[in-house]
């Protein structure tokens, strides 16, 4: 145990880890040119190891520690060194607070990375939403629409679909299994056949900031040990913007039935299959009353974007209006709603929704570090002034 403790509290480990972090940041930054921000971030920084493998091969080996591992080692190193070397005394009180602030900053960033969920809420003029949608991740929603007043949703995230190709997904809420036949992380609609729908083709992953992957999956419904039918679903078929894009490619017309959701009935209960951006439902509804895009007079230069919204929460009876504008987000229900964008016709709004339980930690950590430095500086200053007086 002592050997491990000595290892983690050593200064050599600090130097080596910092050097490795330096290399990681350098390589990871360069990789963004080819991979784009999100993929590079996942591969180099939001990972325990950076993997490498020959092109077009299935195997990969870890070649460098990833951001999570280096961050964890640095944190352990800092805590262990603190325990080993630090003696608590009045004289070192400031340094103690500075170190505690740094540790809090590390932990805060780690929890943000793990727990933060970013999504968007796009509301047309006069429209209402009670959910936000993930920017990057999709889900297969299996929805029991039998009841007259409510729908029961089973959400299967895209990562689960990707891992389960060739296998069955069974959940207690569904009386049947979903056997994933294929999953395309990014796709394009290819050939269309009546009765079969689109055949989706694989596309390289989206790397530009203004692009995103549009997945497609084909699965079988398996019940009582037999296949009950094959379904192909994709965001292409349920998102209005993407359908409009297909519509343009087809010369303004969509094949009949293409926009109808695919359904399956089991023991009198009807299920709908939809592939869509992952949704995060709220216990309240936001209605867009008015979106304003102000420009400087006589120019097209944007001056301000603002959304007047109405929050209605049946559970608490809350019903109020809020104005969200640039740098003035709404903090509500543990989430922050920022003014992010707007619809092409400039009547609808797009709000960015950030759920970060540890959003306060960087503020507290910065105050601690600042306070610690002030205390330490003042103690030295007072000590120096006293000595000078005596002399």
């Amino acid at each position, binding site marked *: *145990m002592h050997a491990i*403790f000595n290892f983690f509290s050593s200064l050599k480990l600090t130097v080596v880890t910092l050097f490795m972090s330096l290399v990681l940041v350098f390589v990871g930054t360069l990789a963004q040119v080819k991979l784009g921000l999100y993929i590079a971030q996942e591969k180099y920084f939001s990972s325990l190891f950076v993997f490498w493998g020959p092109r077009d091969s299935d195997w990969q080996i870890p070649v460098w520690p990833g951001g999570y591992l280096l961050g*964890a080692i640095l944190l*352990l190193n800092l*805590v262990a060194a603190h*325990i080993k070397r630090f003696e608590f005394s009045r004289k070192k009180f400031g340094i103690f607070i500075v170190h505690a602030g740094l540790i809090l900053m590390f932990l805060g960033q*780690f*929890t943000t990375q*793990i*727990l933060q969920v970013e999504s968007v809420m796009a509301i047309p003029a006069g429209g209402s939403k*009670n*959910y936000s949608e993930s920017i990057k991740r999709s889900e297969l929603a299996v*929805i029991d*629409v039998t*009841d007259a*007043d*409510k*729908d*029961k*949703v*089973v*959400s*299967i*995230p895209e*990562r*689960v679909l990707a891992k389960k190709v060739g296998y069955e*997904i069974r*959940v207690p*809420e569904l009386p049947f299994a979903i056997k994933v036949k294929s999953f395309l992380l990014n796709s394009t609609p290819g050939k*269309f056949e*009546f009765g079969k729908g689109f055949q989706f083709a694989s596309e390289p992953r989206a790397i530009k900031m203004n692009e995103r992957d549009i997945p497609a999956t084909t699965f079988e419904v398996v019940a009582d040990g037999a296949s009950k039918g094959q379904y192909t679903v994709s965001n292409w078929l*349920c*998102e*209005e913007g993407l*359908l*409009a894009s297909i*519509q*343009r*490619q*087809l*010369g*303004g*017309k*969509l*094949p*009949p039935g293409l*926009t*109808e*959701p695919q359904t399956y009935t089991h023991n009198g209960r009807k299920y*709908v299959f939809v592939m869509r951006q992952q949704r995060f*439902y709220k216990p309240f509804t936001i209605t867009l009353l008015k979106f304003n*895009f102000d*420009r400087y*007079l*006589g*120019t*097209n230069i944007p001056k301000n974007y603002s959304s007047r919204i109405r929050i209605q929460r049946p559970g608490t009876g809350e019903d109020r209006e809020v104005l969200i504008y640039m740098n003035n987000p709404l903090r509500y229900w543990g989430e922050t709603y920022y003014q992010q964008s707007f619809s*092409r*016709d*400039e009547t609808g709004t797009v709000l960015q929704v950030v759920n970060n339980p540890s959003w306060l930690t960087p503020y507290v950590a910065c105050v601690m570090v600042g306070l610690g430095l002030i205390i330490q500086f003042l103690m030295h200053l007072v000590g120096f002034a006293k000595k000078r007086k005596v002399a």
Partner: protein
Amino acid sequence: MQNSTLKINWTAGIALAACLVAVGCKRDSVTSYEIPKENYTPRVAAIPMGGEGADAMGAPKIRWQTPKGWNEKAASNMRVASFEIPGEDGKSADVGIIPLPSTADMESGTISMWLEDLGLPPANATKPEEVDAAGLKARLYDFTSTEPKFQDKFKKRILAAILPRQGQMWFVKMAGEESVVGRERETFIAFLKTLSFEAAPQIAGGGGGAKTNWKAPEGWQEVNAGPMLKAKFVAGEAEITVSTAGGELSANVNRWRGQFGLAPASDVDIEKDVKTIALADGTKAFAVDLTGTNPKTKRPGRLYGLIVPRGGETWFYKMTGESAAVGAQTNQLAEFAATAH
């Protein structure tokens, strides 16, 4: 004592990390919940085809009659229509139709931009002239630069009509060398009168859409067209399809190149490869001739296609098949394209 503190620290640290990872991983697990009743059929509005800007804005379709001497170009970017007017000694003018959302200062902002482009002070904004356009009243602005702003040799002139209609502003702008714009001024005003709006078409609901009385050349046999096609014919070993779509010329040529297993070409290469021909009815058409692998037969084949921008729509006449069979029908395709629209 130190050991026991250490032990607690390690245990607490590992427990905290495990909790965080467990909560984090929950994002990637199957979840279930209940929600109020929803509708899962996406609303897809009928969109007009033609210029890219028109469908993006959900704007109604606009039609026009191309004046003599104006060369119609493929619509691009925000333009629903684009024309080029050649002049002497490299002088020219360019005409574009752009719909934009109507906002309080859209007009003043755009005029400021034009004045800046011409190097004129903002105070130069004059009262517009009122002209007829699409059966409505439009405001006509006419500005000329004092400095040589066209190719840095000639004065530049902007003649533009702004037509507010149903929450949108249609900008019809002619910009170019001063004398060319001056020469075409009356033609431009007459052109504005020929503009007409059409209500957005409804989705036909399958099938290839209403087909007019087309006369297929001799030897062509009409066959059942797919859902995306207006018509389909077979002529010996060659197959001919007719469709309409949006998008820029380069995107459509590259779409065809992709179908024939060819790598996408740059805009410059496409401009070099695509020939401009005049159809029998005087309409300009872009002729594309590609050889590659026919996706149907997986054998070497040829694609000869005509892309025809016509009154707010782009028509595609595509002929594919074995090289000699396609070569034998190119003239017939051009004749057919002149009548079939």
